[in-house]
């Protein structure tokens, strides 16, 4: 499958995963495979599944701790603002349409899947639609010396070309609104804000709903490994979830969520990849929810890719070039994101 792009990427096209899919198929039917080996399994790794938030969400769900919120949330807000800057070493992963935004949004589908209770992200996305997308790229100074490409693939990239690639192809800030169009969350909207190079760093999931007294929310802080339930009093006195008093942040390693009786401590969790390698090297097959097969990962990739592609095609002038989409060059990452949020009308 190939696409012709307009706008920022000029005449460049993007090929999807077809070549890798063919390679997987060929690998699974390799006639030279050593006799006696079990059938080859090819899976993908999403490190977000080994983050603390995903098992916590599973834990909360299976104990029905916040069913009154989770069973039918009013809306879900996910904000992942990373401090790390993009252009140092990693940018070649973020090629093509969507760039860092497509990557980050796909990661964020994992905790959302756990929250909504779907077995796979693919199933969940089949019950969702994208309402709107707003995105922006780095406003990087061009013509600086010293950039070097990874010594891989296309060879060394000229400095100007690299700066151009970064500014044109790497969408680093994005806001996205999704809506569930199937059970169990039919009509629930999901708001995502993500970006890199933003201080202070913040990774939060807020599931908003109601309890008997009015608005309530279940809040997860991914980085600080905290979660808590906020009720209408806190929501009304603080005026904003962001300004809830710090003492309400409970260490969920102890699972001391206010108003809850379940306080059994969690076992300490191993490092992300120790956990991933343990599962991969285990005799039993890895759970496809946490290690999706290539086809599923490709589906997720295509889902967001096509949405971003449509969005880009609809705005062929791109972001920084268009009068309607210019953001001031002195904006910090956080200001760019606020600017995008305003444009989305949230």
């Amino acid at each position, binding site marked *: 499958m190939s696409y012709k792009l307009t706008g920022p990427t000029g005449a460049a096209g993007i090929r999807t995963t077809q070549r890798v899919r063919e390679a997987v198929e060929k690998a699974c039917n390799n006639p030279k495979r050593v006799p006696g080996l079990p059938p080859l399994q090819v899976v993908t790794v999403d490190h977000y599944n080994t983050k603390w938030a995903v098992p916590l969400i599973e834990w909360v769900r299976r104990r029905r701790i916040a069913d009154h919120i989770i069973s039918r949330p009013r809306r879900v807000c996910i904000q992942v603002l990373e401090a790390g800057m993009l252009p140092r070493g990693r940018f070649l992963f973020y090629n093509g349409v969507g760039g860092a935004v497509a990557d980050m949004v796909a990661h964020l589908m994992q905790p959302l899947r756990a929250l909504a209770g779907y077995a796979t992200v693919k199933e969940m996305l089949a019950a969702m639609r994208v309402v709107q997308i707003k995105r922006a790229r780095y406003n990087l100074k061009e013509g600086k010396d010293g950039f070097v490409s990874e*010594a891989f693939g296309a060879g060394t990239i000229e400095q100007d070309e690299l700066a151009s690639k970064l500014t044109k192809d790497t969408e680093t800030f994005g806001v996205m609104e999704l809506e569930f169009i199937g059970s169990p969350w039919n009509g629930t909207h999901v708001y995502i804000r993500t970006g890199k190079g933003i201080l202070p760093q913040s990774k939060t999931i807020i599931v908003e709903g109601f309890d008997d007294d009015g608005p309530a929310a279940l809040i997860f802080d991914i980085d600080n490994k905290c979660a808590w339930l906020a009720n209408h009093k806190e929501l009304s006195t603080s005026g904003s979830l962001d300004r809830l008093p710090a003492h309400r942040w409970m260490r969920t390693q102890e699972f001391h969520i206010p108003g809850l009786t379940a306080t059994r401590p969690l076992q300490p969790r191993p490092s992300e990849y120790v956990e991933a390698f343990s599962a991969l090297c285990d005799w039993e097959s890895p759970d496809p*929810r946490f290690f999706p097969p290539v086809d599923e990962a490709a589906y997720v990739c295509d889902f967001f890719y096509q949405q971003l592609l449509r969005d880009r095609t609809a705005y062929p002038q791109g972001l920084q070039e268009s009068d309607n989409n210019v953001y001031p060059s002195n904006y910090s990452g956080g200001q760019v994101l606020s600017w995008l949020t305003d444009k989305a009308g949230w």
Partner: protein
Amino acid sequence: MVNSKCSRSAARLYFDIPCENDRLPTTEIRVGPSEEMRGNPRAQMPVLLVIIGGLGDWCVRRVLKHAMEFEKESEGKATVVVVDIHPRVDPEQDAFNQWVDEIDRWIARRLIEQSAEDVDLPPRDASGRTMKGIAWGFTERLADDPGLPDPTKIGAPGPERAIGEFKERLGDDFIAASNEDRSKLQKVVEPKISGYLADTEKQFSDDPQATVDELASRWKLARNIESFAEIKDGVVKFLVDQVVKVAHDAQKRLYNEREALKEWLQQTVSISGREAHRYWRFDLASTILYQYSSNDGKVAVPEGMLRQLAREHRIIVYAATPPEAYPGILNQWSAYAERIALEKPVAGLLEPV
């Protein structure tokens, strides 16, 4: 290895039945022949975990440290080998010490990149919470010239020089912090917070106790402070300690972590009773896998050896490479591996044409 009790109980997790163990459920949904293979002798075999793309950003950033931990925790049941796919800067220079030199250069480059990302982040306390701090301008200095010293460039000076250049680029404040030159740092801090100190002094003169109560936890001050000078010293010391910690963390990464990774990658491991270097290379163009032998130098790993490894080990391949390499990796390892896991597939599988 994964806790099998967790795996079994977690099989029911999807249906919201309480689980006895709260670790990440990893294997609860059985697929393919797994159930039928109970009692299969392969289940008892040692594991050979092959990490491909070992000197790439993601591996040096996250994976290799965890791989070291995983191998150690496995108590000999798992052995990790690391396969590098970067083309050599000079393919003719193939003595092992030249391989090691290149390993060091790549690790240094990655760690410089990571340090640049971290160096101006707000310091965090032991529980990971952000602490109050001031902007030292490190990020701005780096942004002025985004290219970092790169020891992997052809003809570039070695890792030590690159690290030195990186520190110089961060400026005198960073070097002073690295050297724990506290008196110099104090002189830098005071003008940066002069406005804040003036306000605090006025507040203190109006209501000393309330001011101390308000500031004590913020700046980790003693509550029996009696003069503004003590507050000022406490605040300045707090901020100086922070920047010293930032510099120490960078030093730790650039020296201790670099040494640990280098040492681990240079080690030899025992595979099927044979000693082999942990660090291998895969030439994507010729699809030849190379090992380094102490006796014979660089040697192509023969197919027969890989077949034997597959009969004696459960080979698990983890690939953290750009997607262009995936077909080559799948082709190379599908004959021998039980599982192949691909990292970063989501954005990475989008390929420009």
